[in-house]
């Protein structure tokens, strides 16, 4: 082999996108083997996945566009929580707190739905703005603690998740007419429902939130790649000391990145509250979008478009769960695949070691030939 031209293996290993695809395929492969090992038919898993993405029920030969709508509905919070994780990751922070920031956004949006004046469009727009603001503050606190007191953001965000959960449960009870698990129905002006999208997807819950999500993806890309703020954040992520020496305010970068990161997760909470449900919920537990968001960001390589695609992938797994469960596939196989994907991504540096060894071996062969 000509040592100057990189071979196929080398080119694949140095491409982030190719690695992400490989890792996801590996995850599915292990999931399939696991299902075979416990004597379930893996074909049912794939049928469920195909039905979710295309609307085709292969077993019955029927088509229903509702499944596609529900797939996108499930993907929206995952894309946004992935963006949340990715935004912090680019600044060198590990935001496990998307879950808590999501809850804060959701709770504030639920309150706003009942408290704000019922003016069309203004009502839900203001509810979302308030929810994002609160979530940004919730995330920003952690960034501030990290910058000021060097408190580990990993432990701090996890603690904030539980505080948010119990705080949300407590606060939501104050909405008049709330029982132990739900509030009364939202006023119509607070809802994100979109008659055109519903008609298109056979009355799925698909809503205006999809457009907000697309806007968020563009916003992420623009801020991160095209502005001075984004450059400061990325520089902080690469090397804090170098960033400080070149005049970047690292404390500000850390706080700001966690705040914007929180705003993304908060938007996810607002869209789930006002779009997917017609009423507010007294949360019984974590919705786990924030944790899956970690896997989404890792597969998407913390880039805007990659995270968007990864969110669609994990949304597909999530909305296929009920279909799997009804076909004797334990739905937890989707969690296993997500977990495996993250584990495989963490093993990726191993490829670098292998490539180094290959390069050395090639160099040795080259020098032998010269002699």
């Amino acid at each position: 082999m000509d040592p100057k031209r990189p071979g196929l293996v080398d080119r694949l290993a140095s491409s982030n996108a190719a690695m992400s695809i490989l890792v996801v395929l590996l995850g599915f492969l292990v999931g399939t083997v696991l299902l075979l090992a416990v004597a379930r038919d893996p074909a049912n898993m794939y049928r469920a996945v195909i039905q979710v993405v295309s609307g085709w029920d292969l077993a019955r030969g029927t088509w229903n566009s509702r499944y596609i709508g529900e797939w996108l509905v499930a993907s929206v919070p995952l894309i946004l929580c992935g963006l949340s994780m990715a935004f912090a990751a680019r600044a060198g922070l590990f935001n496990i707190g998307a879950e808590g920031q999501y809850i804060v956004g959701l709770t504030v949006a639920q309150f706003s739905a009942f408290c704000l004046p019922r003016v069309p469009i203004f009502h839900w727009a203001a509810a979302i703005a308030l929810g994002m603001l609160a979530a940004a503050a919730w995330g920003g606190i952690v960034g501030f603690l990290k910058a000021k007191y060097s408190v580990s953001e990993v432990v701090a965000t996890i603690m904030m998740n539980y505080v948010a959960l119990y705080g949300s449960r407590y606060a939501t009870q104050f909405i008049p007419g709330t029982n132990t698990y739900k509030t009364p129905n939202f006023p119509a002006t607070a809802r994100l429902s979109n008659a055109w999208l519903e008609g298109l997807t056979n009355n799925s819950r698909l809503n205006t939130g999809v457009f907000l999500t697309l806007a968020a993806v563009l916003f992420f890309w623009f801020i991160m790649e095209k502005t001075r703020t984004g450059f400061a954040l990325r520089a902080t992520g690469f090397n804090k000391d170098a960033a400080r020496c070149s005049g970047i305010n690292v404390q500000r970068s850390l706080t700001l990145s966690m705040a914007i990161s929180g705003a993304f997760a908060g938007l996810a909470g607002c869209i789930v509250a006002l779009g997917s449900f017609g009423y507010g919920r007294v949360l019984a537990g974590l919705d786990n979008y924030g944790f899956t968001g970690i896997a989404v960001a890792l597969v998407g390589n913390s880039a805007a478009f990659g995270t968007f695609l990864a969110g669609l992938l994990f949304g597909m797994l999530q909305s296929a769960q009920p279909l799997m469960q009804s076909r004797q596939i334990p739905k937890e196989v989707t969690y296993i695949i997500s977990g495996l994907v993250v584990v495989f991504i963490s093993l990726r540096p191993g490829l670098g070691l292998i490539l180094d060894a290959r390069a050395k071996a090639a160099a040795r062969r080259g020098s032998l030939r010269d002699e």
Partner: protein
Amino acid sequence: MSNVFGLVPSILMMASPILIAALGGMISERSGVVNIALEGLMGFGAFTAAAANVLLEGQLGGWSIWLSLALATLVGALISLIHAFASISLNADQVISGTGINLLANGVTVFLCQVIFHHERTDAFRRGMAAGPGGIYPTAYIALALLVAIWHLLYRRPVGLRLRSCGENPQAAAAAGIDVRRLRYWAVFASGALGGLAGGCLVLTQTIEYKENMINGAGFIALAAVSFGRWIPKGVTGAACLFGAAVAFSIYVVNIPALRIFPPEFFSAMPYVITLATLVLFSGKDYAPRASGQPYEKGAS
């Protein structure tokens, strides 16, 4: 006052698993590897102990609990090898592989529950661990014994000195002839075993079955106890007892009429708020092992 003394056994019951897991986290971090997977390892341990106890208690009677704990320890140790391989052999980001194990824990355990027990939790076992004199569970004695043993190992044995040196300055340790990677492997293996054991202790004393999200942050609290306890056994023990007390109190509080004016959520959130507050109040980077969280690369300076 009798009320407050009555709380001691339940404080010990809550604190023991946190302490055991925190000791594991401490060993691992002192060797230079952050083990954020403790939460997931506790999940694996709890599931293993509960499932083994359900399946074995018919045949083995009283011995089944101890065998279940041993199995939980073993499973925790084996799973932690994934983390060890990624973070030590491959120099990977230690937080990512730990998070992977945490995600995997919820999926794998409930998946196996569905396969073995046909619903989303294990069957309930008939007998958990029996409390000893004074209502104190044996897990408290296990935790105490481990505490003494680990203190002795870390501070009174050559291997402890070597392990600590790997976390402070791995290059210097390697120059002194210590196999840094091997010691770190053992440290992560030990923390996995302790994490699994902690999960087993939790499920056998506090509930009657394993179900999703049962660990509910106990592993993360243990992780916080390590840094709040400044990476030394004395401090970690104090932190674990404080967090255990906060958890026990949040459950006990319904029995105190004077405190009913506060909502129950207030007390449920308390352990987490206390953890957060202590992290801010006692934040001090100077106490952390200097090389904790950094991969050791041979030949790098």
